[in-house]
């Protein structure tokens, strides 16, 4: 358990470092943040006032220190562009991005795991060849190009799905989670659900297709190894039905390396949001990040970077926990 405590402590330190690093880099950005804050042609008096207000007259390290202190208290500052609290901006956009990446992850696993299993069980079948092709080509596809191709096909030519955006219908009455799909269901607003689903489908699909191959490869490799283990043969020798062997014995063992890989994949998905959100005009963190970088909106950029790093670290920590739960050998200190 002390291992785990150390990990948490360390992750925390890393996130702080990320904040500092972003902060430093943002200060190097060309362009004057004051322009964003004040608009065109400010008077010298306004400039000086703003400079003091924003604390830009302080030396760098003081600014940095203050920032960390504020963040610790939950104060992320105000957006220079919209003047709203950064936290509010982050909250809105985060839900959108989180919904997108989570659905993409779900697709990845939903299709990736069965294909990987099939490829492992029948190494010479079409499944295996499909897996091989997907795992090599999937990671080579530019995710934004894939998104656009989907748009051409599904929105342009076939007109099955809407082109862009998160939804045309107004959001559900009670926002429980911020996730449109869930909220719509919880509110029993099925129209809104369908609308949201139609809008999220293509971007999530594009995101997942690119990372899908990593999952199938990992599953195939892990399953392939497990299926050759002696305990699988023993289970068969005792007459345990094949289905049970596959899903209870083999899969659980094979999941261990797959879990590690999933953390990595989620990271790729998060990175992909920058590109996909642009293609699909998705109102998420990626778009927010780009916009705020372009307008030198430093607090927002720092906030976004912090949030991304935080989510990424959290996901990996959660996966580690899951891994510990599945494999008792670690906690019980096996040799």
């Amino acid at each position: 358990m002390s291992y785990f405590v150390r990990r948490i402590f360390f992750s925390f330190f890393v996130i702080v470092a990320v904040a500092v690093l972003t902060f430093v880099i943002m200060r190097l950005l060309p362009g004057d943040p004051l322009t964003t804050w004040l608009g065109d042609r400010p008077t010298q008096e306004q400039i000086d006032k703003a400079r003091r207000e924003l604390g830009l007259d302080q030396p760098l390290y003081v600014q940095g220190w203050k920032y960390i202190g504020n963040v610790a208290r939950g104060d992320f500052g105000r957006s220079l562009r919209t003047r709203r609290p950064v936290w509010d901006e982050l909250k809105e956009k985060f839900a959108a991005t989180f919904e997108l990446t989570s659905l993409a992850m779900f697709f990845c696993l939903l299709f990736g795991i069965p294909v990987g299993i099939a490829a492992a069980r029948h190494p010479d079948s079409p499944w295996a060849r499909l897996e091989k092709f997907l795992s090599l080509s999937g990671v080579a596809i530019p995710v934004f190009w894939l998104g656009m191709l989907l748009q051409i096909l599904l929105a342009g030519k076939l007109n099955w799905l809407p082109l862009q955006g998160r939804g045309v219908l107004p959001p559900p009455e009670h926002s429980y989670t911020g996730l449109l799909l869930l909220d719509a269901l919880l509110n029993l607003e099925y129209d809104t659900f369908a609308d949201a689903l139609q809008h999220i489908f293509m971007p999530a699909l594009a995101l997942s297709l690119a990372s899908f191959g990593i999952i199938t490869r990992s599953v195939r490799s892990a399953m392939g190894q497990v299926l050759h283990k002696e305990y699988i043969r023993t289970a068969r020798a005792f007459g345990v039905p094949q289905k049970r062997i596959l899903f209870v014995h083999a899969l659980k063992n094979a999941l261990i390396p797959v879990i590690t890989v999933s953390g990595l994949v989620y990271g790729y998905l998060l990175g992909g949001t920058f590109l996909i959100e642009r293609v699909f005009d998705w109102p998420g963190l990626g778009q927010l990040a780009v916009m705020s970088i372009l307008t030198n909106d430093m607090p927002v950029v720092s906030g976004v970077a912090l949030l991304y790093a935080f989510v990424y670290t959290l996901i990996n920590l959660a996966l580690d926990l899951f891994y510990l739960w599945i494999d008792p050998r670690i906690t019980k200190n096996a040799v």
Partner: protein
Amino acid sequence: MSEALLTLEELTVKAGNLTLLDKITFSVKRGETIGIVGESGSGKSMTAWSILRLLPKGVKAAGGKVCFKGTDLYSRSTEEMRALRGRRIAMILQDPHAALNPIRTIAAQMDDVIRAHFREDKQARRARMRRFLTMVELAESERVLSSYPFQLSGGMLQRVLIAMALCLEPDMLIADEPTTALDALIRLQIVELLQKVQRESGMALMVISHDFGVVSKLAGHIVVMYGGRMAEYAATGEILEHSRHPYTRALLKSRPSVKHVAERLYTIPGTPPKAGEPEKGCKFEPRCPFRAGRCRREAPPLYEHGRGRVACFFHEDLKNV
């Protein structure tokens, strides 16, 4: 007419063009113990897997029959075989650590096995587990049940596996190298345990090993295999005292013994053959001290000689040596 429980009739198993098992023939009656002895690669494990029809990819039965309680197992459906495995014929393997799933408790794994064959409720299943764990002389059955494989020693795990095999109350147990992965002291205990278990349950036992000592303690009859073929098949006493096959003799001679302390341990010159070679003639010929020209040209058939069967042209002569 005493019926045999299991009869192998000229069972032949091939992997493509390579013959892995060539016309294996023997039978086991209820309550009897048969031993299968041979070096690694002789096909003894393959025989066991062939009985259960769990052959690896690319390996297929190419001839002969495996009759269990009257029906040829190779004419059974997949589901019938599944129901039979463990329930009628159970098998335990060499390395007990590898044979169990490292991330599941003993109880969970035994439960899987029981549920695959019996419709008992949780209580009954638990009771069954405890009963058989006690039969294999594992004292704290509850503790064992809630443990993971890595928390138990090799000897204990082998007992657990035996218990798992027994708890389905099969007609026959196949033990493939049950003692090989264990220390010498534990080995003896396991052998005695197998004897006791067989006595109490009345089931048939097939012991496969390269260790003549283990086999001769347990088995009433012995099949000696070499290169995928049968070399000799007779009662244990007959094999030990009056073996008529050069290979069997060589094997017996190469046992380390406390009684005859020789200067050098006898080893059979040469190496066991790979699958499929030599094609013609007797498999043992290259290493046989009694070989003749004929041995290279033809493979000897399995001769019946009243007290057993031998596959050697010169078995008559060997009788007197």
